[in-house]
């Protein structure tokens, strides 16, 4: 499997709601995981557009839209992550939506290694 080079340049990528196996692999390798009480913060470059992004994963939120929202840090189900870059305008992005549209999932191991 080849991982295409991260495109970067003055013209941002068009918005595209897309996922590829390489996204998850690259994010698993490059993202930084920080554990806080009640929340895990994932940060790193978006594997599609390359811009830095931050993604908080929380155990529960105030009045969750559907029960069993995000996976707690200790559970094994994969966490769905998507590009949340805010300071870039992606051509074709829906109104009020941040990010380039890329999404993937990551599995948070029970304990962060060193």
């Amino acid at each position: 499997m080849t991982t295409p080079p991260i495109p970067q340049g003055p013209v941002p990528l068009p918005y595209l709601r897309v996922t590829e196996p390489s996204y998850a692999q690259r994010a698993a390798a490059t993202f930084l995981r920080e554990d806080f009480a009640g929340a895990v913060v994932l940060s790193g470059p978006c594997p599609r557009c390359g811009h830095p992004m931050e993604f908080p994963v929380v155990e529960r939120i105030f009045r969750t839209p559907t029960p069993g929202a995000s996976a707690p840090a200790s559970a094994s189900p994969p966490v769905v992550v998507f590009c949340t870059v805010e300071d870039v305008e992606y051509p074709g992005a829906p109104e009020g939506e941040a990010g380039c549209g890329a999404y993937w999932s990551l599995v948070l191991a029970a304990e962060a290694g060193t």
Partner: protein
Amino acid sequence: MTGPTGGLRAGPAPTPAQLRHARSVRRALATELGRVREAALAWRNGLGAVLAGLIGFSLIKGRNDVGQIASNWAVVAGLLLLGALVVGAWGVLALLRAAHGRPSAARVVASPGGAVRPFSVEDHDETLASARSLRIGITLTCLCTALLAAAVGVTWYAPPKDPPQLLIRQGGTTLCGTPTSAARGTVVLKVNGVTSTVDLARADSVTPVASCPAPAPAGP
């Protein structure tokens, strides 16, 4: 396949439904602090008004009534009222805490060996703490209302204080009972359900007492 700090593995490609759910969670997360504040504000306004009215009512209304009930019941009513005030003040503080947050600055400098908590995490913690305060505040104000209702109920339904009694000594006999009427130097005493008229001019002493001494041994 581990990241800079490890603990991350590539997961399977999410389904569109999973993505939709993740996006809605993220939207809810971005607005949760505003929503919890809004909810707390509404609760604070509503419960605050109810509480202020109830406390005012029981303070003004309760005072006259407490004096007319038996003293140990007056103590009960007072304790209930005190409890209601303490619980109510605590509840209002909790509601205010939920509606306006704790006036403290977020920590920006990393503690030695620890990372700076991002503001998104701070806000999330604040949301959960506020939601907790809101629940506590609602419970306490409801408890306060119940205590107030109990206190007012005691002032209404507690047995009335015993009426004052009159102890009259006349020669070697002693009469003690509730005065029912008095006219022209005589007083009508009700002693154990039997009324008797006493001529005060012949009385040696007339003493008002809170309660009569134990009935004297039978026999004149």
